[in-house]
């Protein structure tokens, strides 16, 4: 039983990482119908920037906040400068642009910081936490805490601030939003900024576990896809719930099903995607798309 609880907690921790990246993907998809294939690489790049800051002697939480800020600005700039020229073009055209970004970020990261794996510090203590007979990793708990704090802040922002409301409106109904005086283009840019921020959080939380290298986020991005599919690509809440669920399932399957070694773990994510698509493509919280004829 103890093992079960431990694995669930561990699953929640990695689930938080998937949830953050999935949320980033869904935020952009909801507003623009575009899946940002470069989300993971952008997150990886932000994490490398953090590494450089830490290497230069900055204290952890300072670098953490600075990285989030840089990621935010980067996301805004990318939307305004790189995505805007193809905003109204066919979807696959925009997809190719995001693939181009993916490749650029990956390549530049390898060029600047080399492909050698770099250890990345965790801000949380090494000693595990004991609650009765159950042992929890401090990093795991810390991760869950950080993820939850970020999510609560985001929720408060969207729910209670005028800007958050404007962003939600712009994502849902751009035409009416313009008529309400909302600059929809800038709302999209802010969406990209927030998405990049959450991506960076995912990167910063996973780097201590996986060690930092340019291909670090590849597998995570696939899990994020699974999370978004499970929760529903049209629902930010779904993305988060999906992320935590995928994390838990991944951990439990890895623990209890013997022939699933690390090689086949990815298959679990893929299997989840296929099953959801066969049963209810719009996911747990998504709404089936009803089109007017």
């Amino acid at each position, binding site marked *: 039983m103890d093992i079960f609880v431990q694995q669930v907690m561990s699953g929640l921790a990695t689930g938080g990482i998937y949830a953050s990246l999935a949320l980033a993907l869904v935020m952009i998809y909801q507003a623009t119908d575009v899946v940002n294939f470069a989300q993971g690489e952008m997150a990886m790049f932000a994490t490398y920037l953090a590494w450089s800051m830490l290497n230069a002697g900055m204290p952890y939480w300072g670098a953490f906040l600075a990285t989030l800020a840089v990621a935010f600005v980067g996301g805004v700039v990318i939307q305004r400068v790189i995505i805007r020229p193809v905003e109204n073009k066919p979807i696959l055209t925009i997809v190719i642009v995001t693939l181009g970004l993916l490749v650029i970020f990956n390549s530049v990261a390898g060029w600047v910081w080399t492909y050698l794996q770099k250890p990345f510090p965790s801000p949380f203590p090494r000693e595990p936490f004991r609650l009765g007979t159950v042992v929890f990793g401090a990093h795991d708990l810390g991760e869950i805490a950080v993820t939850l704090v970020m999510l609560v802040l985001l929720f408060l922002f969207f729910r209670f601030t*005028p800007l958050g*409301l*404007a962003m*939600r*409106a712009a994502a*849902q*109904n751009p*035409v*009416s*939003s*313009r*008529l*309400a*005086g*909302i*600059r929809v283009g800038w709302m999209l840019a802010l969406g990209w900024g927030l998405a990049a921020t959450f991506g960076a959080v995912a990167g910063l939380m996973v780097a201590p576990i996986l060690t930092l290298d340019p291909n670090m986020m590849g597998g995570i991005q696939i899990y994020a896809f699974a999370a978004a599919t499970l929760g529903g690509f049209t629902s930010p809440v779904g993305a988060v719930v999906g992320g935590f669920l995928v994390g838990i399932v991944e951990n439990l399957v890895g623990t209890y099903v013997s022939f699933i070694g690390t090689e086949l773990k990815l298959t679990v994510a893929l299997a989840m995607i296929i099953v959801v698509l066969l049963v209810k493509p719009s996911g747990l919280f998504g709404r089936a798309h009803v089109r007017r004829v």
Partner: protein
Amino acid sequence: MGAILEVEKLEAFYGRTQALHGVSFAMEEGGITTVLGANGAGKTTTLRAISAMVRTRGSIRFASEPIQGKSTEDIVAMGIAHVPEGRGTFVDLTVEENLRIGMYARREKRHAGRDMERVLELFPILRQRRRQHAGTLSGGEQQMLAVARALMLGPRLLLLDEPSLGLAPLVVREIFRILRLINEESRVSILLVEQNASLALDLADHVFLLETGRVVLAGTSDVLRRDDSIRRSYLGY
């Protein structure tokens, strides 16, 4: 009281197609003007041109300030609220959130609370359904919400595109009654596009009639209502 809206030789284009061919008219501040005409005459296009939702040529002045060439968002901030055809409700947001969006671009934030109260008084059903998702409201209620949302801007000019569309006559009458009330209370000028000519003529003091992108008739609604031949040939009743 000067002219709130002056439109001169307005041309409007959808891509290469020209929809308005030199429309000219003016509105006095505090007045209610209705634009009538058959489907495709260019009524909606006229409103869209004022809100810079379509490409235009010609001159549009709002309270003596030229606005052609400005962006929609800037025009809204200047005090022109546009309720589009189909109402444009944010269906996934609550009624209250819809109203809050209305005041996003509002210049005078101080009196927003007072305006919110007034709007809920005018449309009590909205107060009742405050926390409901706007998509669950009936057509008439959504129309009221759309007008309320527009009023939250604190506008000087209200553009309304076919508010009676798809609504039961009683509901329409109620909405028009409230529009008159708002106009009398806060001197909001109203430019109303309508297919329901008789109702529109009751509300408005000035009329102009569009036919394939041109103004063919303009005058006070009194005169038009009384002139039998004009009424019969242009308005069909």
